[in-house]
């Protein structure tokens, strides 16, 4: 049986992890290489690096970061953030990413999904969807880190990305992100019912209970940042608790 996945996410700019990371047992908690390896040793199933580069120089630094992370990781690495073309994706894969996630560019140019899938395969092509609730049961899509509302229904968009060759959906609830109130479970159910793609739930997790809920509502993986960065839980502790709660995880 396929295991439910736990995926720590690191925001990286100019070669540094930029969200607060509080670890006492790391020499340098801001180093994405050390931190990725640290989570790998705790039993993370994959790592996501989100490129939040402000400048072109930062973006070049990101490629070096990916190369260094790749040298250490023996688990899959997904890289997202600012991927605008097949060439961008090729550079990230060439540096050592196993999967590439795209968001704004895919909304602007949906054909990009077809091209990425044709070039690298569906299993490389992750589509990140930032969904914002309009009314009960209706979600729109936001891009540019939530600053731009798109004329798209999130559920329809998810189905379209599948038809175009996406291999996985990274589904973030814009409403829940950073609230620590748990994943948007209705959104998760709607998207997992509208597609046959694996769905990574993201946005709002602050506890193992939240992760259990996500898996019970159809998530195939959960993305989490602060719950791990703040050092309250290790990945191993989360997995032990999930296993006790009946979720099948890799231990």
């Amino acid at each position, binding site marked *: 049986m396929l295991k439910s996945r736990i995926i720590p996410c690191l925001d990286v700019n100019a070669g540094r992890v930029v969200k607060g990371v509080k670890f006492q047992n790391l020499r340098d908690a801001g180093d994405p290489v050390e931190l990725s390896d640290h989570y790998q040793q705790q039993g993370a*199933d994959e790592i996501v690096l989100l490129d939040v580069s402000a400048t072109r120089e930062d973006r070049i630094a990101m490629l070096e970061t990916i190369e260094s992370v790749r040298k250490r*990781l023996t688990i899959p690495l997904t890289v997202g953030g600012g991927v605008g073309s097949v060439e961008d994706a090729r550079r990230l894969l*060439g540096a050592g990413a*196993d999967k590439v996630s795209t968001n704004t560019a895919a909304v602007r140019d949906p054909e990009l999904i077809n091209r990425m899938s044709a070039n690298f395969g569906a299993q490389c092509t992750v589509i990140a969807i930032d969904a914002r609730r309009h009314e009960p049961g209706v979600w729109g899509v936001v891009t540019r880190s939530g600053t731009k509302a798109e004329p798209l229904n999130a559920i329809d968009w998810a189905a379209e990305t599948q038809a175009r060759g996406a291999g996985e959906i990274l589904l973030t609830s814009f409403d829940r992100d950073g609230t620590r109130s748990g994943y948007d479970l209705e959104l998760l159910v709607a998207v997992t019912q509208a597609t046959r793609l694996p769905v990574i739930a993201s946005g709002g997790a602050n506890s193992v209970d939240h992760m259990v809920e996500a898996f019970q509502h159809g998530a195939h993986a959960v993305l989490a940042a602060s719950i791990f960065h703040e050092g309250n839980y290790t990945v191993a502790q989360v997995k032990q608790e999930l296993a006790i709660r009946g979720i099948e995880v890799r231990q």
Partner: protein
Amino acid sequence: MIQIIDTGVANIRSLQASFDRLGQPWKLTVDPEEIRSGIHVVLPGVGAFAAAARKLDEFNLREPLIQRIEADRATLCICLGMQLLCAGSDESPDTKGLAIISQHVSRFGVDVQIPQLGWNEVTPQQPNGPFELGLAYFANSFRLVEPPDDWGFAETEYGGVFISSIWRGRILACQFHPELSAAWGQTLLEDWINMS
């Protein structure tokens, strides 16, 4: 020196990183003679069946591959590389595989997410195989359902049982990615190199 066949359609950085960690030198090649006679050859594969088969044709690699496998020279086929050993695939009905085994590759059924992405249990069905039972990382939409005669094999469950690995002599084919399968996968790669 490990020869990695460069079909140009595979993302092989993680494989190269694995060999680097093991201290094993590697090179990319499409040279038919190196592939026919090299001590260790890896046929990786990510992407579409037809695109990878076309690359084998373009570089005249079919015969060298078939000859080295018939001669039992150490060969590791990963993911699509394993599927290329088969006669053909539902993914590209008009494209011939290497037909080293007569089986056909088919798509996962309707009751599971496609692609299969993530960690799943690999259970060897014969003793003394090339690896122990373990958890491996998969990224595939197509799979082998029937094991070939006279090969050892491992099974995995995803909407029914499928064949996740086959082996015979120094030939090992894995539907999963050992290079992304944590310590278990690193051990598998190391053992395959040392075995041969």
